[in-house]
Protein backbone atom coordinates (compact mmCIF):
# COMPACT_ATOMS: atom_id res chain seq x y z
CA UNK A 1 0.00 0.00 0.00
CA UNK A 2 2.64 2.49 0.98
CA UNK A 3 4.47 1.56 -2.20
CA UNK A 4 2.01 3.23 -4.53
CA UNK A 5 1.82 6.48 -2.58
CA UNK A 6 2.71 9.28 -4.98
CA UNK A 7 2.15 12.39 -2.91
CA UNK A 8 2.50 13.00 0.81
CA UNK A 9 1.48 16.26 2.41
CA UNK A 10 2.70 16.55 5.99
CA UNK A 11 1.69 19.16 8.56
CA UNK A 12 1.52 22.04 6.11
CA UNK A 13 1.03 25.58 7.39
CA UNK A 14 0.83 28.63 5.18
CA UNK A 15 0.05 32.14 6.40
CA UNK A 16 -0.09 35.42 4.54
CA UNK A 17 0.80 38.71 6.12
CA UNK A 18 -1.53 41.53 5.38
CA UNK A 19 -0.72 45.07 6.53
CA UNK A 20 -2.05 44.58 10.00
CA UNK A 21 -3.24 41.01 10.18
CA UNK A 22 -2.06 37.50 9.55
CA UNK A 23 -4.25 35.28 7.43
CA UNK A 24 -4.10 31.58 8.14
CA UNK A 25 -4.50 30.28 4.60
CA UNK A 26 -3.64 26.68 5.48
CA UNK A 27 -3.41 25.14 8.89
CA UNK A 28 -2.04 21.71 9.66
CA UNK A 29 -2.83 19.99 6.36
CA UNK A 30 -2.15 16.27 6.01
CA UNK A 31 -3.04 14.26 2.93
CA UNK A 32 -1.74 11.21 1.13
CA UNK A 33 -2.51 10.59 -2.53
CA UNK A 34 -2.10 7.18 -4.16
CA UNK A 35 -0.96 6.62 -7.71
CA UNK A 36 -3.79 6.72 -10.21
CA UNK A 37 -6.20 8.33 -7.80
CA UNK A 38 -8.60 11.12 -8.69
CA UNK A 39 -8.94 13.55 -5.79
CA UNK A 40 -11.25 16.53 -5.64
CA UNK A 41 -10.71 19.36 -3.19
CA UNK A 42 -13.91 21.18 -2.51
CA UNK A 43 -14.80 24.11 -0.33
CA UNK A 44 -16.12 27.65 -0.26
CA UNK A 45 -13.92 30.46 -1.51
CA UNK A 46 -11.13 31.42 0.84
CA UNK A 47 -10.76 27.92 2.26
CA UNK A 48 -7.23 27.62 0.86
CA UNK A 49 -7.94 24.95 -1.75
CA UNK A 50 -6.09 26.81 -4.50
CA UNK A 51 -3.25 27.64 -2.11
CA UNK A 52 -2.88 23.94 -1.37
CA UNK A 53 -2.79 23.11 -5.09
CA UNK A 54 -0.18 25.81 -5.69
CA UNK A 55 1.97 24.34 -2.92
CA UNK A 56 1.78 20.93 -4.58
CA UNK A 57 2.77 22.56 -7.88
CA UNK A 58 5.72 24.26 -6.21
CA UNK A 59 4.42 27.71 -7.18
CA UNK A 60 4.29 28.64 -3.51
CA UNK A 61 6.11 27.47 -0.38
CA UNK A 62 4.76 26.45 3.03
CA UNK A 63 6.00 28.07 6.26
CA UNK A 64 6.25 24.69 7.88
CA UNK A 65 5.67 21.08 7.00
CA UNK A 66 6.67 19.35 3.80
CA UNK A 67 5.33 18.00 0.53
CA UNK A 68 6.87 14.87 -0.92
CA UNK A 69 6.43 13.60 -4.46
CA UNK A 70 7.61 9.98 -4.57
CA UNK A 71 9.58 10.74 -1.43
CA UNK A 72 11.30 13.81 -2.88
CA UNK A 73 10.66 17.21 -1.39
CA UNK A 74 8.80 19.65 -3.63
CA UNK A 75 10.62 22.98 -3.78
CA UNK A 76 9.86 24.45 -7.19
CA UNK A 77 7.58 23.94 -10.19
CA UNK A 78 8.36 21.01 -12.41
CA UNK A 79 6.85 19.53 -15.57
CA UNK A 80 6.30 16.35 -13.58
CA UNK A 81 3.44 18.20 -11.89
CA UNK A 82 1.26 19.60 -14.66
CA UNK A 83 -0.95 22.53 -13.72
CA UNK A 84 -4.11 23.61 -15.53
CA UNK A 85 -5.22 27.11 -14.62
CA UNK A 86 -8.77 28.36 -14.36
CA UNK A 87 -8.54 30.21 -17.67
CA UNK A 88 -6.43 32.52 -19.80
CA UNK A 89 -3.13 30.75 -19.36
CA UNK A 90 -2.61 29.85 -23.02
CA UNK A 91 0.04 31.77 -24.92
CA UNK A 92 -2.03 34.01 -27.18
CA UNK A 93 0.77 34.37 -29.72
CA UNK A 94 1.10 30.63 -30.30
CA UNK A 95 -1.24 28.39 -32.27
CA UNK A 96 -3.02 25.44 -30.67
CA UNK A 97 -0.27 23.04 -31.67
CA UNK A 98 2.49 25.46 -30.69
CA UNK A 99 0.87 25.88 -27.28
CA UNK A 100 0.77 22.12 -26.84
CA UNK A 101 4.40 21.93 -27.95
CA UNK A 102 5.48 24.71 -25.54
CA UNK A 103 6.47 22.29 -22.79
CA UNK A 104 8.55 20.20 -25.19
CA UNK A 105 10.35 23.33 -26.38
CA UNK A 106 10.87 24.63 -22.84
CA UNK A 107 12.47 21.31 -21.89
CA UNK A 108 14.50 21.20 -25.12
CA UNK A 109 13.05 17.84 -26.11
CA UNK A 110 10.97 19.10 -29.02
CA UNK A 111 12.68 17.44 -31.97
CA UNK A 112 12.55 13.91 -30.56
CA UNK A 113 8.90 14.25 -29.46
CA UNK A 114 7.36 16.14 -32.40
CA UNK A 115 5.08 13.21 -33.25
CA UNK A 116 3.42 13.41 -29.87
CA UNK A 117 1.72 16.70 -30.74
CA UNK A 118 -0.72 15.18 -33.23
CA UNK A 119 -1.44 12.41 -30.74
CA UNK A 120 -2.40 14.89 -28.02
CA UNK A 121 -4.44 16.99 -30.42
CA UNK A 122 -6.54 13.96 -31.24
CA UNK A 123 -6.69 13.02 -27.54
CA UNK A 124 -8.47 16.31 -26.82
CA UNK A 125 -10.43 16.10 -30.07
CA UNK A 126 -9.16 19.29 -31.68
CA UNK A 127 -8.20 17.95 -35.08
CA UNK A 128 -8.55 20.71 -37.64
CA UNK A 129 -7.77 23.45 -35.11
CA UNK A 130 -4.00 22.91 -35.02
CA UNK A 131 -3.24 26.26 -36.66
CA UNK A 132 -5.89 28.28 -34.81
CA UNK A 133 -4.86 30.93 -32.31
CA UNK A 134 -6.37 30.86 -28.79
CA UNK A 135 -8.69 33.81 -29.47
CA UNK A 136 -10.17 31.93 -32.40
CA UNK A 137 -11.38 28.94 -30.35
CA UNK A 138 -14.01 28.62 -27.64
CA UNK A 139 -13.31 28.68 -23.91
CA UNK A 140 -13.93 24.93 -23.66
CA UNK A 141 -11.50 24.19 -26.47
CA UNK A 142 -8.91 26.47 -24.87
CA UNK A 143 -9.13 24.52 -21.61
CA UNK A 144 -8.71 21.24 -23.47
CA UNK A 145 -5.58 22.71 -25.07
CA UNK A 146 -4.32 23.71 -21.61
CA UNK A 147 -4.88 20.13 -20.42
CA UNK A 148 -3.06 18.67 -23.43
CA UNK A 149 -0.23 21.16 -22.95
CA UNK A 150 0.36 19.81 -19.44
CA UNK A 151 -0.15 16.16 -20.36
CA UNK A 152 2.41 16.14 -23.17
CA UNK A 153 5.12 16.45 -20.49
CA UNK A 154 4.02 13.07 -19.06
CA UNK A 155 3.36 14.49 -15.58
CA UNK A 156 3.11 12.12 -12.64
CA UNK A 157 0.48 14.40 -11.23
CA UNK A 158 -2.05 16.58 -13.03
CA UNK A 159 -3.24 19.52 -10.93
CA UNK A 160 -6.49 21.09 -12.08
CA UNK A 161 -7.36 24.49 -10.62
CA UNK A 162 -11.08 24.90 -11.41
CA UNK A 163 -10.38 24.42 -15.11
CA UNK A 164 -14.10 24.22 -15.85
CA UNK A 165 -15.12 27.04 -13.53
CA UNK A 166 -15.70 29.59 -16.28
CA UNK A 167 -17.44 27.25 -18.72
CA UNK A 168 -21.10 26.59 -19.42
CA UNK A 169 -22.55 23.35 -18.07
CA UNK A 170 -22.56 21.46 -21.42
CA UNK A 171 -18.93 22.26 -22.14
CA UNK A 172 -18.14 21.39 -18.56
CA UNK A 173 -19.71 17.95 -18.83
CA UNK A 174 -17.83 17.40 -22.07
CA UNK A 175 -14.48 18.18 -20.46
CA UNK A 176 -15.31 16.07 -17.40
CA UNK A 177 -15.78 13.07 -19.69
CA UNK A 178 -12.56 13.94 -21.47
CA UNK A 179 -10.72 13.95 -18.14
CA UNK A 180 -12.08 10.51 -17.25
CA UNK A 181 -11.05 9.20 -20.65
CA UNK A 182 -7.56 10.66 -20.24
CA UNK A 183 -7.34 9.21 -16.77
CA UNK A 184 -8.09 5.77 -18.18
CA UNK A 185 -5.78 5.92 -21.20
CA UNK A 186 -2.88 7.81 -19.60
CA UNK A 187 -3.12 6.22 -16.17
CA UNK A 188 -2.77 9.69 -14.64
CA UNK A 189 -3.14 10.83 -11.06
CA UNK A 190 -5.26 13.96 -10.85
CA UNK A 191 -6.09 16.50 -8.16
CA UNK A 192 -8.99 18.79 -8.96
CA UNK A 193 -9.94 21.97 -7.13
CA UNK A 194 -13.61 22.74 -7.62
CA UNK A 195 -16.64 24.27 -5.97
CA UNK A 196 -19.05 22.06 -7.90
CA UNK A 197 -20.33 19.16 -5.75
CA UNK A 198 -21.73 17.17 -8.72
CA UNK A 199 -18.47 17.52 -10.60
CA UNK A 200 -16.54 16.23 -7.61
CA UNK A 201 -18.78 13.17 -7.23
CA UNK A 202 -18.82 12.42 -10.94
CA UNK A 203 -15.03 12.41 -11.22
CA UNK A 204 -13.43 11.54 -7.89
CA UNK A 205 -12.32 8.56 -5.90
CA UNK A 206 -12.06 10.75 -2.84
CA UNK A 207 -13.39 14.18 -2.03
CA UNK A 208 -11.48 16.43 0.34
CA UNK A 209 -13.68 19.01 2.07
CA UNK A 210 -11.94 22.14 3.25
CA UNK A 211 -13.18 24.92 5.51
CA UNK A 212 -11.91 28.49 5.80
CA UNK A 213 -10.35 30.59 8.55
CA UNK A 214 -8.05 28.84 9.09
CA UNK A 215 -8.01 26.78 5.91
CA UNK A 216 -8.03 23.15 6.88
CA UNK A 217 -9.29 19.74 5.84
CA UNK A 218 -12.54 19.02 7.67
CA UNK A 219 -13.37 15.67 6.12
CA UNK A 220 -12.43 13.22 3.36
CA UNK A 221 -15.23 11.28 1.69
CA UNK A 222 -14.79 8.12 -0.36
CA UNK A 223 -16.83 7.90 -3.54
CA UNK A 224 -17.23 4.20 -4.18
CA UNK A 225 -19.39 4.39 -7.30
CA UNK A 226 -18.28 2.27 -10.25
CA UNK A 227 -17.27 3.89 -13.55
CA UNK A 228 -18.83 4.88 -15.90
CA UNK A 229 -20.90 6.94 -13.50
CA UNK A 230 -24.27 8.52 -14.13
CA UNK A 231 -25.04 12.06 -13.15
CA UNK A 232 -28.08 10.90 -11.24
CA UNK A 233 -29.57 7.83 -9.67
CA UNK A 234 -30.08 7.03 -6.04
CA UNK A 235 -26.49 6.24 -5.15
CA UNK A 236 -25.23 9.44 -6.74
CA UNK A 237 -27.81 11.45 -4.81
CA UNK A 238 -27.06 9.55 -1.63
CA UNK A 239 -23.48 10.69 -1.77
CA UNK A 240 -24.55 14.14 -2.90
CA UNK A 241 -26.85 14.51 0.10
CA UNK A 242 -24.26 13.14 2.45
CA UNK A 243 -21.71 15.54 1.06
CA UNK A 244 -23.97 18.56 1.17
CA UNK A 245 -24.95 17.75 4.70
CA UNK A 246 -21.36 17.56 5.82
CA UNK A 247 -20.54 20.56 3.78
CA UNK A 248 -23.32 22.58 5.35
CA UNK A 249 -22.26 21.44 8.76
CA UNK A 250 -18.75 22.29 7.89
CA UNK A 251 -19.72 25.86 7.06
CA UNK A 252 -22.38 26.15 9.76
CA UNK A 253 -20.16 28.36 11.87
CA UNK A 254 -21.71 31.82 11.57
CA UNK A 255 -19.93 34.10 9.12
CA UNK A 256 -18.55 37.27 10.67
CA UNK A 257 -20.34 40.40 9.56
CA UNK A 258 -17.18 41.98 8.33
CA UNK A 259 -14.52 40.70 5.99
CA UNK A 260 -10.92 40.96 7.10
Amino acid at each position, binding site marked *: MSNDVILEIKNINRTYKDEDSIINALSDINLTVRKGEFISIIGSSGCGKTTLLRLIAG*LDKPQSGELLLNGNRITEP*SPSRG*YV*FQQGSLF*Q*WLTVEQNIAAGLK*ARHVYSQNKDKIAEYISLIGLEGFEKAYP*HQISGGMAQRVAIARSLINDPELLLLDEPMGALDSFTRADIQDKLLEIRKTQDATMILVTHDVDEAIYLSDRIVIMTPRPGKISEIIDVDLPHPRHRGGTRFFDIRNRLLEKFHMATATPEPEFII
Partner: protein
Amino acid sequence: MSVSTVNAESPLKKGGFPVKFIGVILFSVVGFVFAILANVFIPQVSEGVKFEDHIIGSYAVNMNGAYRIVVALLAVFYLGLGIFSGFDKERRKKYRHRAKFRFAVGIALALWDLLGTKLQVLPQPFFPGPAGILEAFLIESDYILENTLYSLRLFSWGFVLGVIVGVGTGILIGWFPKVFYWVSPVLNVTGVIPAVAWMPFALTLFPTPFAAAVFLIVICVWFPVASLTASGVQSTPKALFEAARTLGGNTAYLVFHVAVPHAMPQIFTGINTASAFAFTTLVMAEMMGQPGGLGYYINASKVWSAYYKVFAAIIVMAILFSLISKIVSLVESRVLRWQRGLLK
Protein backbone atom coordinates in the same frame (compact mmCIF):
# COMPACT_ATOMS: atom_id res chain seq x y z
CA MET B 1 -26.13 24.35 -48.98
CA SER B 2 -25.45 28.04 -49.00
CA VAL B 3 -21.79 27.40 -49.77
CA SER B 4 -22.62 25.52 -52.95
CA THR B 5 -24.92 28.31 -54.11
CA VAL B 6 -22.13 30.81 -53.75
CA ASN B 7 -19.76 28.55 -55.66
CA ALA B 8 -22.26 28.06 -58.44
CA GLU B 9 -22.70 31.77 -58.91
CA SER B 10 -19.21 33.03 -58.27
CA PRO B 11 -17.46 31.88 -61.51
CA LEU B 12 -19.81 34.06 -63.52
CA LYS B 13 -19.43 37.03 -61.22
CA LYS B 14 -15.75 36.63 -60.46
CA GLY B 15 -14.50 36.30 -64.01
CA GLY B 16 -16.80 38.99 -65.32
CA PHE B 17 -15.77 42.55 -66.06
CA PRO B 18 -18.82 44.76 -65.62
CA VAL B 19 -19.24 47.24 -68.48
CA LYS B 20 -20.24 49.90 -66.00
CA PHE B 21 -16.80 49.71 -64.41
CA ILE B 22 -15.20 51.13 -67.59
CA GLY B 23 -16.90 54.40 -66.67
CA VAL B 24 -15.25 54.32 -63.22
CA ILE B 25 -11.83 53.76 -64.78
CA LEU B 26 -12.32 56.62 -67.23
CA PHE B 27 -13.48 58.85 -64.40
CA SER B 28 -10.31 58.03 -62.42
CA VAL B 29 -8.07 58.82 -65.34
CA VAL B 30 -9.82 61.75 -66.96
CA GLY B 31 -8.50 64.23 -64.41
CA PHE B 32 -4.92 63.41 -65.40
CA VAL B 33 -5.78 63.61 -69.08
CA PHE B 34 -7.30 67.00 -68.41
CA ALA B 35 -4.06 68.09 -66.67
CA ILE B 36 -2.01 67.06 -69.71
CA LEU B 37 -4.37 68.80 -72.14
CA ALA B 38 -4.31 71.94 -70.00
CA ASN B 39 -0.52 71.91 -70.07
CA VAL B 40 -0.46 71.41 -73.86
CA PHE B 41 -3.18 73.81 -74.95
CA ILE B 42 -3.21 76.65 -72.41
CA PRO B 43 -0.63 79.16 -73.58
CA GLN B 44 2.27 80.20 -71.36
CA VAL B 45 1.28 83.67 -70.16
CA SER B 46 3.96 84.57 -67.63
CA GLU B 47 7.34 85.37 -69.12
CA GLY B 48 9.25 84.67 -65.90
CA VAL B 49 9.67 80.97 -66.70
CA LYS B 50 12.52 79.61 -68.77
CA PHE B 51 12.12 76.29 -70.54
CA GLU B 52 15.55 74.84 -70.88
CA ASP B 53 16.15 71.55 -72.62
CA HIS B 54 17.88 68.87 -70.60
CA ILE B 55 19.58 65.99 -72.31
CA ILE B 56 18.52 62.63 -70.89
CA GLY B 57 20.05 59.77 -72.80
CA SER B 58 19.53 60.73 -76.40
CA TYR B 59 16.41 62.81 -75.71
CA ALA B 60 16.10 66.49 -75.06
CA VAL B 61 13.31 67.28 -72.65
CA ASN B 62 12.21 70.46 -70.88
CA MET B 63 10.27 70.64 -67.64
CA ASN B 64 6.88 70.76 -69.34
CA GLY B 65 7.75 67.63 -71.29
CA ALA B 66 8.82 65.90 -68.06
CA TYR B 67 5.60 67.01 -66.38
CA ARG B 68 3.47 65.59 -69.19
CA ILE B 69 5.38 62.31 -69.07
CA VAL B 70 4.91 61.99 -65.30
CA VAL B 71 1.19 62.76 -65.45
CA ALA B 72 0.78 60.42 -68.43
CA LEU B 73 2.52 57.67 -66.43
CA LEU B 74 0.09 58.28 -63.56
CA ALA B 75 -2.82 58.03 -66.00
CA VAL B 76 -1.48 54.82 -67.53
CA PHE B 77 -0.83 53.37 -64.07
CA TYR B 78 -4.39 54.00 -62.90
CA LEU B 79 -5.77 52.76 -66.19
CA GLY B 80 -3.84 49.52 -65.78
CA LEU B 81 -4.81 49.24 -62.12
CA GLY B 82 -8.45 49.78 -63.14
CA ILE B 83 -8.38 46.99 -65.69
CA PHE B 84 -6.64 44.69 -63.22
CA SER B 85 -9.12 45.56 -60.46
CA GLY B 86 -12.14 45.17 -62.74
CA PHE B 87 -12.14 41.38 -62.49
CA ASP B 88 -12.44 41.16 -58.72
CA LYS B 89 -15.32 42.43 -56.65
CA GLU B 90 -13.26 43.53 -53.66
CA ARG B 91 -10.68 45.30 -55.80
CA ARG B 92 -13.42 46.99 -57.82
CA LYS B 93 -14.92 48.32 -54.62
CA LYS B 94 -11.60 49.72 -53.47
CA TYR B 95 -10.86 51.26 -56.86
CA ARG B 96 -14.31 52.81 -57.11
CA HIS B 97 -13.88 54.26 -53.63
CA ARG B 98 -10.69 56.07 -54.68
CA ALA B 99 -11.92 57.21 -58.11
CA LYS B 100 -13.20 60.58 -56.92
CA PHE B 101 -9.94 61.35 -55.20
CA ARG B 102 -7.85 60.49 -58.27
CA PHE B 103 -10.04 62.66 -60.43
CA ALA B 104 -9.53 65.53 -57.98
CA VAL B 105 -5.75 65.02 -58.03
CA GLY B 106 -5.77 65.48 -61.82
CA ILE B 107 -7.80 68.66 -61.58
CA ALA B 108 -5.61 69.97 -58.75
CA LEU B 109 -2.49 69.35 -60.87
CA ALA B 110 -4.05 71.28 -63.75
CA LEU B 111 -4.91 74.19 -61.45
CA TRP B 112 -1.48 74.18 -59.86
CA ASP B 113 0.14 74.12 -63.29
CA LEU B 114 -1.99 77.08 -64.31
CA LEU B 115 -1.32 79.16 -61.19
CA GLY B 116 2.29 78.16 -60.63
CA THR B 117 3.69 77.97 -64.15
CA LYS B 118 1.35 79.34 -66.82
CA LEU B 119 0.20 82.50 -65.03
CA GLN B 120 2.65 82.53 -62.11
CA VAL B 121 -0.03 84.01 -59.85
CA LEU B 122 1.54 82.23 -56.85
CA PRO B 123 4.42 84.19 -55.27
CA GLN B 124 7.66 83.19 -56.95
CA PRO B 125 10.16 81.67 -56.44
CA PHE B 126 8.54 80.22 -53.31
CA PHE B 127 5.73 78.29 -54.96
CA PRO B 128 6.79 76.86 -58.30
CA GLY B 129 4.37 74.84 -60.45
CA PRO B 130 4.58 71.05 -60.65
CA ALA B 131 6.73 71.26 -63.77
CA GLY B 132 9.12 73.60 -61.95
CA ILE B 133 9.62 71.03 -59.21
CA LEU B 134 10.31 68.32 -61.75
CA GLU B 135 13.03 70.52 -63.16
CA ALA B 136 15.08 69.81 -60.02
CA PHE B 137 15.12 66.13 -61.00
CA LEU B 138 16.04 67.02 -64.57
CA ILE B 139 18.95 69.12 -63.40
CA GLU B 140 20.43 66.92 -60.70
CA SER B 141 18.67 63.62 -60.20
CA ASP B 142 22.06 62.03 -59.44
CA TYR B 143 22.71 64.49 -56.67
CA ILE B 144 19.21 64.04 -55.23
CA LEU B 145 19.65 60.27 -55.31
CA GLU B 146 23.01 60.58 -53.60
CA ASN B 147 21.49 62.66 -50.81
CA THR B 148 18.50 60.33 -50.55
CA LEU B 149 20.81 57.36 -50.09
CA TYR B 150 22.76 59.28 -47.48
CA SER B 151 19.53 59.92 -45.56
CA LEU B 152 18.48 56.31 -45.93
CA ARG B 153 21.84 55.07 -44.67
CA LEU B 154 21.77 57.43 -41.71
CA PHE B 155 18.20 56.51 -40.89
CA SER B 156 18.79 52.77 -41.14
CA TRP B 157 21.80 52.83 -38.83
CA GLY B 158 20.09 55.01 -36.25
CA PHE B 159 16.73 53.31 -36.37
CA VAL B 160 17.93 49.71 -36.27
CA LEU B 161 20.48 50.39 -33.53
CA GLY B 162 17.90 52.39 -31.58
CA VAL B 163 15.35 49.59 -31.75
CA ILE B 164 17.92 46.99 -30.64
CA VAL B 165 19.16 49.13 -27.75
CA GLY B 166 15.58 50.13 -26.87
CA VAL B 167 14.22 46.59 -26.76
CA GLY B 168 17.30 45.45 -24.83
CA THR B 169 17.05 48.09 -22.12
CA GLY B 170 13.26 47.76 -22.11
CA ILE B 171 13.57 44.07 -21.25
CA LEU B 172 16.08 44.82 -18.47
CA ILE B 173 13.88 47.57 -17.02
CA GLY B 174 10.75 45.46 -17.29
CA TRP B 175 12.30 42.30 -15.86
CA PHE B 176 14.54 43.51 -13.03
CA PRO B 177 12.81 45.69 -10.42
CA LYS B 178 16.20 47.12 -9.43
CA VAL B 179 16.96 48.26 -12.95
CA PHE B 180 13.46 49.72 -13.10
CA TYR B 181 14.09 51.63 -9.87
CA TRP B 182 17.38 53.13 -10.99
CA VAL B 183 16.95 53.54 -14.72
CA SER B 184 13.32 54.44 -15.32
CA PRO B 185 13.51 57.92 -13.66
CA VAL B 186 16.54 58.68 -15.83
CA LEU B 187 14.71 57.40 -18.88
CA ASN B 188 11.63 59.47 -18.07
CA VAL B 189 13.58 62.69 -17.68
CA THR B 190 16.02 62.31 -20.55
CA GLY B 191 13.39 60.79 -22.81
CA VAL B 192 11.31 63.93 -23.10
CA ILE B 193 14.27 66.01 -24.28
CA PRO B 194 14.18 66.32 -28.08
CA ALA B 195 17.18 64.37 -29.31
CA VAL B 196 18.50 67.23 -31.43
CA ALA B 197 19.13 69.22 -28.24
CA TRP B 198 22.13 66.93 -27.74
CA MET B 199 23.52 67.96 -31.11
CA PRO B 200 26.38 70.18 -29.84
CA PHE B 201 27.62 67.38 -27.57
CA ALA B 202 27.11 64.75 -30.21
CA LEU B 203 29.18 66.67 -32.71
CA THR B 204 32.09 67.02 -30.28
CA LEU B 205 31.85 63.53 -28.78
CA PHE B 206 31.76 61.59 -32.03
CA PRO B 207 34.56 61.42 -34.57
CA THR B 208 32.33 61.95 -37.61
CA PRO B 209 29.13 63.97 -38.17
CA PHE B 210 27.57 60.76 -39.45
CA ALA B 211 28.21 58.95 -36.16
CA ALA B 212 26.90 61.97 -34.26
CA ALA B 213 23.64 61.92 -36.23
CA VAL B 214 23.31 58.15 -35.76
CA PHE B 215 23.67 58.75 -32.03
CA LEU B 216 20.88 61.34 -32.05
CA ILE B 217 18.52 59.02 -33.93
CA VAL B 218 19.40 56.15 -31.58
CA ILE B 219 18.49 58.35 -28.61
CA CYS B 220 15.16 59.42 -30.02
CA VAL B 221 14.22 55.85 -30.99
CA TRP B 222 15.49 54.40 -27.74
CA PHE B 223 13.10 56.24 -25.43
CA PRO B 224 9.69 55.18 -26.78
CA VAL B 225 10.87 51.68 -27.63
CA ALA B 226 12.49 51.11 -24.22
CA SER B 227 9.58 52.47 -22.17
CA LEU B 228 6.92 50.57 -24.10
CA THR B 229 8.96 47.35 -24.10
CA ALA B 230 9.35 47.70 -20.34
CA SER B 231 5.66 48.25 -19.78
CA GLY B 232 4.78 45.34 -22.07
CA VAL B 233 7.10 43.04 -20.13
CA GLN B 234 5.78 44.27 -16.78
CA SER B 235 2.15 43.79 -17.78
CA THR B 236 2.63 40.09 -18.56
CA PRO B 237 0.01 38.20 -16.50
CA LYS B 238 1.52 36.19 -13.65
CA ALA B 239 -0.48 33.14 -14.74
CA LEU B 240 1.50 32.98 -17.99
CA PHE B 241 4.81 32.88 -16.13
CA GLU B 242 3.47 30.27 -13.73
CA ALA B 243 2.13 28.17 -16.60
CA ALA B 244 5.53 28.36 -18.29
CA ARG B 245 7.29 27.33 -15.07
CA THR B 246 5.04 24.30 -14.58
CA LEU B 247 5.78 23.34 -18.19
CA GLY B 248 9.50 23.28 -17.43
CA GLY B 249 10.53 26.74 -18.64
CA ASN B 250 13.66 28.30 -17.12
CA THR B 251 14.25 32.04 -16.67
CA ALA B 252 15.47 32.52 -20.24
CA TYR B 253 12.29 30.84 -21.47
CA LEU B 254 10.16 33.13 -19.30
CA VAL B 255 11.88 36.21 -20.68
CA PHE B 256 12.17 35.37 -24.35
CA HIS B 257 9.22 33.04 -24.88
CA VAL B 258 6.68 34.60 -22.54
CA ALA B 259 7.46 38.21 -21.58
CA VAL B 260 8.84 39.39 -24.92
CA PRO B 261 6.12 37.87 -27.13
CA HIS B 262 3.54 39.26 -24.74
CA ALA B 263 5.17 42.69 -24.99
CA MET B 264 5.40 42.54 -28.79
CA PRO B 265 2.27 44.61 -29.56
CA GLN B 266 3.53 47.35 -27.26
CA ILE B 267 7.05 47.08 -28.67
CA PHE B 268 5.58 47.81 -32.08
CA THR B 269 3.61 50.75 -30.74
CA GLY B 270 6.95 52.06 -29.53
CA ILE B 271 8.63 51.38 -32.86
CA ASN B 272 5.88 53.20 -34.77
CA THR B 273 6.13 56.23 -32.51
CA ALA B 274 9.91 56.06 -32.73
CA SER B 275 9.90 56.05 -36.52
CA ALA B 276 8.03 59.36 -36.57
CA PHE B 277 10.52 60.83 -34.07
CA ALA B 278 13.37 59.44 -36.11
CA PHE B 279 12.22 61.14 -39.34
CA THR B 280 12.18 64.50 -37.55
CA THR B 281 15.55 63.96 -35.90
CA LEU B 282 17.06 62.78 -39.18
CA VAL B 283 16.05 65.89 -41.10
CA MET B 284 16.94 68.26 -38.26
CA ALA B 285 20.34 66.63 -37.84
CA GLU B 286 21.00 66.86 -41.55
CA MET B 287 20.01 70.51 -41.62
CA MET B 288 22.28 71.31 -38.70
CA GLY B 289 25.53 69.62 -39.51
CA GLN B 290 25.72 66.87 -42.08
CA PRO B 291 27.72 66.78 -45.32
CA GLY B 292 24.77 65.19 -47.14
CA GLY B 293 21.19 63.98 -46.90
CA LEU B 294 17.84 65.41 -47.92
CA GLY B 295 17.84 67.88 -45.01
CA TYR B 296 21.24 69.08 -46.12
CA TYR B 297 19.96 69.34 -49.70
CA ILE B 298 17.04 71.50 -48.55
CA ASN B 299 19.35 73.84 -46.68
CA ALA B 300 21.83 74.07 -49.54
CA SER B 301 19.03 74.78 -52.04
CA LYS B 302 17.43 77.41 -49.80
CA VAL B 303 20.66 79.39 -49.82
CA TRP B 304 20.29 79.80 -53.61
CA SER B 305 16.55 80.47 -53.31
CA ALA B 306 16.04 77.28 -55.32
CA TYR B 307 12.68 76.54 -53.70
CA TYR B 308 11.73 74.15 -56.46
CA LYS B 309 14.57 71.96 -55.22
CA VAL B 310 13.27 72.24 -51.65
CA PHE B 311 9.92 70.95 -52.87
CA ALA B 312 11.65 68.19 -54.82
CA ALA B 313 13.39 67.07 -51.60
CA ILE B 314 10.12 67.24 -49.68
CA ILE B 315 8.45 65.01 -52.26
CA VAL B 316 11.31 62.50 -52.03
CA MET B 317 10.99 62.53 -48.24
CA ALA B 318 7.26 61.94 -48.45
CA ILE B 319 7.82 58.90 -50.67
CA LEU B 320 10.81 57.59 -48.68
CA PHE B 321 9.22 57.96 -45.26
CA SER B 322 5.92 56.45 -46.43
CA LEU B 323 7.83 53.47 -47.78
CA ILE B 324 9.70 53.03 -44.50
CA SER B 325 6.43 53.26 -42.53
CA LYS B 326 4.88 50.73 -44.88
CA ILE B 327 7.78 48.32 -44.35
CA VAL B 328 7.50 48.72 -40.57
CA SER B 329 3.77 48.01 -40.68
CA LEU B 330 4.31 44.98 -42.91
CA VAL B 331 6.82 43.57 -40.43
CA GLU B 332 4.39 44.38 -37.63
CA SER B 333 1.44 42.59 -39.21
CA ARG B 334 3.66 39.59 -39.89
CA VAL B 335 5.00 39.40 -36.33
CA LEU B 336 1.61 40.12 -34.78
CA ARG B 337 -0.40 37.91 -37.11
CA TRP B 338 -1.78 36.10 -34.06
CA GLN B 339 -3.68 39.30 -33.24
CA ARG B 340 -5.56 39.29 -36.53
CA GLY B 341 -9.25 39.34 -35.80
CA LEU B 342 -8.56 39.98 -32.13
CA LEU B 343 -8.37 43.74 -32.49
CA LYS B 344 -10.46 45.95 -34.69
